[in-house]
């Protein structure tokens, strides 16, 4: 910091840096996109779709937790309500095209998100987490009780149908590119939100809510909007998942699922854009690979160990730590 103070040159430097970063980002994103396009030819498409659905779920969760600082312990409710609604509609109304079923599922989750938000938004910290947990438990109770969900047997044989009545989604590749397109659109949307003025206000709320209030922002409205968007995207993830797997089950509504999405976000790096995607990929893979291998009886303790290790040693998550590392050594 022993440079002479020269606002113009500093500004210049910042702009340069920004440009260089943007270029880097463009390249990284381009490569990622190519990889994702090619992935189903080397990996199993249904499994990739599962990763994408959970990645979207984690991205949605992270918008609320990582960027707004609100820890919801009830996001499973949105995942499940999206899935059940879509599943129910597609199974019972054969005229419905797939995208309409998914939209309806998303809409249900959005409405539920609004209710959750209105009831919980004024609560702080752990109380917020607990109200969302309580509401999600009530939703779980409703799903257990309802005939249409099939209870613990689950809802099975949901038809994938045809996208816009044209593209046959029974084909795994078609289905994959559809899921990928939705995922990318949502990812870009979140990226846009985060970098927009609105996103800046969310970050300000996260850092110091009283200050945001004193600056004259209607903090509650911003938080509610963030919550509703997050719920909508989580519901969309659930809707797509039910179409991909052609089933919806109580597992998605259980509070363990709300815990799992926290793990994904934390492991990947909360408050970063790519973090939840990396985290979801990591957790889904770890769980899946472990359940197949010689350690298959030890999945839960290993997941617990990852939790502990992340909190103790890599609090910024995979992406966060990488960013730190790059800044230190390459920046």
């Amino acid at each position, binding site marked *: 910091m022993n440079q002479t103070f020269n606002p113009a040159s500093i500004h210049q430097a910042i702009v340069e840096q920004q440009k260089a970063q943007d270029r880097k980002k463009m390249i990284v994103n381009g490569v990622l996109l190519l990889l994702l396009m090619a992935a189903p030819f080397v990996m199993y498409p249904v499994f990739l779709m599962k990763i994408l659905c959970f990645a979207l779920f984690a991205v949605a969760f992270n918008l609320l937790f990582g960027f707004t600082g609100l820890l919801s312990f009830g996001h499973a409710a949105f995942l499940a309500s999206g899935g059940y609604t879509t599943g129910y509609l597609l199974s019972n109304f054969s005229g419905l095209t797939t995208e309409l079923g998914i939209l309806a599922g998303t809409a249900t989750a959005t409405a539920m998100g609004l209710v959750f938000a209105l009831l919980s938004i004024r609560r702080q910290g752990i109380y917020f987490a607990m109200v969302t947990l309580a509401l999600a438990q009530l939703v779980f109770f409703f799903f257990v009780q309802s005939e249409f969900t099939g209870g613990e047997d*689950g809802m*099975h044989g949901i038809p994938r149908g045809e996208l816009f009545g044209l593209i046959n989604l029974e084909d795994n590749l078609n289905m994959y590119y559809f899921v990928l397109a939705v995922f990318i659109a949502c990812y870009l949307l979140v990226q846009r939100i985060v970098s927009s003025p609105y996103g800046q206000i969310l970050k300000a709320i996260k850092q110091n809510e009283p200050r945001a209030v004193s600056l004259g922002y209607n903090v509650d409205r911003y938080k509610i909007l963030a919550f509703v968007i997050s719920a909508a995207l989580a519901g969309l993830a659930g809707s797509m998942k039910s179409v991909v*797997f052609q089933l919806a089950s109580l597992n998605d509504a259980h509070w363990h699922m709300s815990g799992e999405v926290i793990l994904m976000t934390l492991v990947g790096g909360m408050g970063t854009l790519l973090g939840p995607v990396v985290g979801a990929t990591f957790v889904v893979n770890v769980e899946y690979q472990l359940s197949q291998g010689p350690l298959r009886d030890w*999945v839960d303790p290993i997941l617990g160990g990852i939790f502990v290790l992340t909190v103790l040693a890599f609090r910024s998550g995979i992406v966060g730590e990488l960013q730190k590392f790059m800044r230190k050594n390459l920046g």
Partner: protein
Amino acid sequence: MTMMKKLLTSAVASALMATGAQAAISDNTVKIGYLADMSGTYRDLAGPNGLAALEMAIKDFGGKVNGAKIEVVSADDRNSPDTSSSTVRRWVENDKVDLVAGLVASSVSIAVSKILEENDRLGIVSGSAASSITNEHCTPNHIHYVYDTYPLANGTASAVVKEGGKSWYLLTADYAFGHALEGDVTRVVEANGGEIVGSVRHPFPTQDFSSFILQAQASGADVVGLANAGADTTNAITTASEFGVTQSGQTLAALLLFLTDVHALGAETAQGIQLTTGWYWDMNEETREWSDRFMKETGVRPTMVHAGIYSSTLQYLNAVAATGSDDAQTVRKQMMETPINDMFAKNGRIREDGRMVHDMFLAEVKTPAESRDEWDLYKILRTIPADEAYRPLSESKCKLVNN
């Protein structure tokens, strides 16, 4: 149409068999995938020990079938239908698995059976209780082997009513399994001239049953029926014993109890409870001999599910050997044509809906005085003939049955 086609192909396949048998076992390997809950709620009734039973069967068969090797892969189902779907899809599409065995949680079994139907592979469900698996969810690609809710209700309820337990109070786990069981019990009790005087639906899972037991006591019913499973049932029985349900003259009837549950309760707490089981380790020389070997492997006595996994795997391998094929329809047809006579079942047969029907047994938990050791827990009171025990095909909603 497709059914017809499948039958035709299998007929053609069996015809071909006579000439060049070995060629029909794909890759010269029979691959079995074992999928079960290895770490959660249902771990003990199948789980890692079920895998041990499966491997025992393969070893007893000789490790090879018609010269082809037998391979086993296994996975934890995480009690999650979507994790299980991913696993089984990979198994059948990439790893060329011919048979999926184990299968415990009903949501998992149903999800897996759909994938097997899509890919025309075979599955044998040994752990699930839901009778819907061979009813509305039946497929030509799976077999339900050990038991289901229908005979559980049938066996226990009809026997208890016939012994004079006319009025019933039901404690029902409030989810699909409990509801199904409750429906079946109600039907059986009423058909035998008894009545249901009350019932309570408790959340799943429930730790403290004292409130429900109190309501059951207040009802004055002759019999308190437990239409639940696992920890719910053991907790309910413990509480019933604590509150002196049997001392006050009521009978406890558990509809689904596994040997592992009764072992956890012990003879002192569980004595006198009547239950229906598909198999018990201490029935005859054959069952004891196998159970001793099983215990050497695992350290515990087998449940009916463990025995069923062993038996069904042998049946499957025999069918593969007989037909020289690992094609799902060929093997299933052969299995349907072959009566099952082994240490697990006598005159068992697989119906067209995929239900393996065999004699069931009404058992009573021994008193501490009668019980020689920690695993000497049941006395068999009565054999329930297969035709009486299982849902008749005339009531079936299965698409494979012409009704």
